[in-house]
């Protein structure tokens, strides 16, 4: 259904339910939908499962959401960073669950959710702690681990530009998880630096077609 253009980030994140699984784009700060995360903090939904590459940096954005006790579980590839003190403390205190997923398997599991794939045999993590308890199979002489889709109730992503229909283009490596997360959540919310008229984005260059995007909000130079 048609993409909704929102007046501000608060309108964009309205209605997120307690207990939701929230996919959050970005790799470090590149592509991080900071304005939407801040709005989600104000919105108040709690008991969230957050799926993102990292587990928050510094004291803002995802780190602030964690600090406010809104996050029950984090699914990510790389929680521990120089500036991930908020997550580190909560994790050591047993106040947040953690599922570590190899970065490529994380991206592919999100893609699988968006692409209607029930599960897939993946060669990553075979023979490691991160495949313990998972089904394995030898196919054509190579061992694979069965991985399942990760689907979101909500995705918060950041893009460079939207047209009024909701087609998105990204900028440089800020693209990262945005396009796959946009395919894998019931409600996809994008903050963009610019909204242009429909027809102003070359159809050959659209990265996320409007079908995937539910709400768009312009948020200055948000990154």
């Amino acid at each position: 259904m048609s993409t909704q253009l929102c007046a501000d980030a608060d309108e964009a994140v309205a209605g997120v339910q307690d207990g939701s699984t929230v996919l959050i784009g970005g790799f470090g700060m590149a592509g991080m939908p900071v304005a939407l995360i801040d709005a989600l903090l104000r919105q108040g939904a709690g008991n969230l499962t957050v799926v993102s590459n990292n587990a928050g940096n510094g004291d803002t954005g995802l780190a602030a959401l964690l600090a406010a006790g809104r996050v029950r579980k984090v699914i990510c590839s790389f929680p521990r960073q120089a500036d991930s003190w908020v997550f580190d403390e909560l994790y050591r205190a047993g106040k947040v669950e953690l599922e570590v997923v190899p970065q490529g398997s994380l991206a592919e599991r999100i893609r699988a959710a968006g692409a209607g794939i029930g599960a897939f045999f993946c060669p990553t993590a075979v023979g490691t702690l991160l495949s313990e308890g998972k089904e394995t199979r030898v196919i054509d002489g190579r061992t694979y681990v069965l991985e399942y889709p990760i689907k979101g109730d909500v995705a918060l992503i950041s893009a460079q530009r939207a047209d009024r229909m909701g087609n998105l283009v990204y900028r440089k490596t800020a693209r990262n998880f945005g396009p796959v997360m946009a395919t894998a959540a019931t409600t996809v919310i994008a903050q963009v630096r610019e909204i242009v008229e429909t027809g102003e984005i070359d159809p050959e260059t659209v990265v996320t077609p409007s079908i995937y995007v539910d709400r768009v909000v312009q948020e200055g130079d948000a990154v």
Partner: protein
Amino acid sequence: MNPATRSSHTDAPLGKHDIAALVARHIPDGAFVNLGIGQPTLVADHLPPGSGVVLHTENGMLNMGPAATGSDIDPDLTNAGKVPVTELPGAAYFHHADSFAMMRGGHLDICVLGAYQVSARGDLANWHTGAPDAIPAVGGAMDLAIGAKQVFVVMTLFTKDGAPKLVKECGYPLTGLGCVDRVYTDLAVFDISSQGVSVTHTFGITFDDLAARLDMPLLDATKP
């Protein structure tokens, strides 16, 4: 669908353009829709301007426009039936794996397909006549059948020989199991759900006459 639409009926069977027009009226504004090859394509001609309905073609495009004519014909721009088409503002192109991921992932609101047969459970048969010398060719039919949130079928209710095409069990090889939500025919419209098969519209036939000609229990939903 509003109650007035649900209870509509006419005194005469619908022609294929009437069926297409009815389907078009039942597609919500702003829906993302794939129209299968053949009769379903006609639905596009009846979508009102400003409906915001976005057409998907599985060979890699959203916001497909009408068929191309004259100098607009571009061999690089065709629909799934390989007919030259046009591009509307807000279009997007993508490759085949992305296009079918979009479909399989349940992102299309509605897909409209033709059929040889539909069963009372919503099984669809539309790709193979089962003839022993037929060369099987499925194209995107099976992906479309299981991918869209809702599958509408358009077909005549009976074959030229008078055999019903809405049947207890499909005799033709299946395209998908339990995937059809609604069947639009010249004589009636049927909703298929876990409750069974409901007749929502009749055209030139009474519910009782319809029930007598079809070998399955029917629920009468023609009255508002």
